[in-house]
């Protein structure tokens, strides 16, 4: 019985205090902020030359991926979806191509690219296009003019508007140790000081 008591005590302490740290070792990217809210009725169609261009400011360094929700009605788009990232001078710095076949309708789709180490506080643009898709194979992204200030403006059909796509920026963490430290310090701060909010 003593063995069982020890086994269970150690197992539960392991589950509560160690398992999250082990899971944290698997975190390769950290989201900047939660996905902003949007009205699903406001959508932009992307096909042929209908391209959306989004301006945003990266709030941290090591920008490594950008994600947004994409509709692919009836999974008709099986063409290339091209994500191109530009710096503030509109020099192309990264390009990621995925296939529409892999985008389920309404998927929160991530575009991964090589990490940009010095991305903190810099302005970027990206375009999203599907040049080989016809009007029947359109994909759709959501937009809103009521976005946080780092989602600056977007261009569609030669019209420039405030706000834009509900995107999430992902950053590569400095190291796993930093991730674990951040997770536990945030958890215990919230536990000990209920008014503490994660920065």
């Amino acid at each position, binding site marked *: 019985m003593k063995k069982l008591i020890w086994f269970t005590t150690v197992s539960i302490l392991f589950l*509560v205090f160690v398992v999250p740290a082990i899971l944290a070792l698997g*975190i390769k*990217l950290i989201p900047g902020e939660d996905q902003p809210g949007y009205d699903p009725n406001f959508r932009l169609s992307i096909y042929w030359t209908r391209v959306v261009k989004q301006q945003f400011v990266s709030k941290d360094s090591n920008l490594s991926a950008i994600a947004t929700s994409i509709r692919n009605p009836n999974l008709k788009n099986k063409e290339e979806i091209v994500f191109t990232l530009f710096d503030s001078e509109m020099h192309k710095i990264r390009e990621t191509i995925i296939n529409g076949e892999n985008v389920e309708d309404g998927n929160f789709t991530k575009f991964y690219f090589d990490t940009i180490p010095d991305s903190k506080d810099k302005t970027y643009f990206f375009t999203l296009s599907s040049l080989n898709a016809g009007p029947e194979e359109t994909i759709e992204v959501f937009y809103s003019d009521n976005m946080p200030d780092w989602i600056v403006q977007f261009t569609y059909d030669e019209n420039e508007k405030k706000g834009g796509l509900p995107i999430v920026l992902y950053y590569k963490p400095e190291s796993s140790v930093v991730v674990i430290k951040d997770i536990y310090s945030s958890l215990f701060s919230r536990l000990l000081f209920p008014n503490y909010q994660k920065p």
Partner: protein
Amino acid sequence: MKKLLFLAIALRILVSIFIFHPDIKTYNFQSSFLKKGVFNIYNYLVENKKNLPLKDDFVYFPLTYFALGGYQAAVAPLVGSGFDSWLADAGTNSTVGNPHIFKYLLALKLPYLVLDIAIAFLLMLFFENEKDKKKAFVYWLFNPFTIVLIYVYSNVDIFPVILTLLGFLQIKKQKMFPAAFLLGLASGFKLYPLLFIPFLFLTGRNLKEKILLAATPLVTFVLIVLPFVSPAFIQSALVSGLTTGIFTSEFTTLGLSLLFFYALLMDKHINLFNYWVFVFLIVFSFTLFHIQWLLWLAPFLVILAVKKPNLSSLIFLFSLAAVVIPLLYQDRFMTISLFRIYSTWFDNLPTPFSVITKFYDTDNLRSVVHSFLAGGSLVMMFKVFKQDFVEGKNS
């Protein structure tokens, strides 16, 4: 004993406050309408679905609603004014980011803690000598499975479980009708105790007693649900997957039929305790079960492990297999997402299903583990039958 109890409670509190399965919030949100005077939750949810932040049906039976809703009404002054709005919060991130979530989870899981500790003491009443009593107490409080089942997966089934255990205490005292009533009362929370009616029928000494024993839980159940019978109730609770899921496998029906006819035609000294254990071993062997269901059997396996120490290692091994099976479903809330209180960054991690699928067919692996459980359980049943037969012969 006091030190052990203190340690057991401390471990349970740790799991309660740090690990969160969203089901507990959903059914407590639904039960919170009792405070506002809603009697028939099934109709209320269907009629007001459009305006409610959480749109799920109430899939449990009426006593769950009244037990949880009544408890919430009692602790309302202690949990604070933000509690109800937290229950109604549909935001997945704001829910786990709420600064009071630790207090709320502790409050919601407190009734489970009370019932859990009560079960430990009830289990002791099944034994005569002190050594066995202590064994049962320790086996219940210090096995990782029940802690995980109750506090990680927020298992509301603990209400019917304690009632079925009380029922078997009555059976031990040969008080069959109070036992049948308690099984009926338990089915007012969850339907599964009604599976046992055919075996209760067999223990009657004459036809009249057989019919009365079988009718008692059924009538109790009908009286409980009668005021709620409506299309909404039938759709949400009576024919929901949680209720009918047991019979999705033909092997389960075949196994239960075999067990019943064995008891009817071949067993001259029906031991109801064994049959209760075997019914659910068959269910878990052949049905795609919810992890919460495993609690139905847990206290009875503790009794079996104490009564038959030669089976305790096997029971531990089969329990491990049974807990692993549901973890291999493609369901984030069975594994990774349980830790979202620590950080929502875990949302970026793949589930065990996705990780294993990179190397091997996870569905196949789950079938292998399930077959292992089924084979082992069937042999264990045979062993218990055989042992009891030999012991009966010798005595």
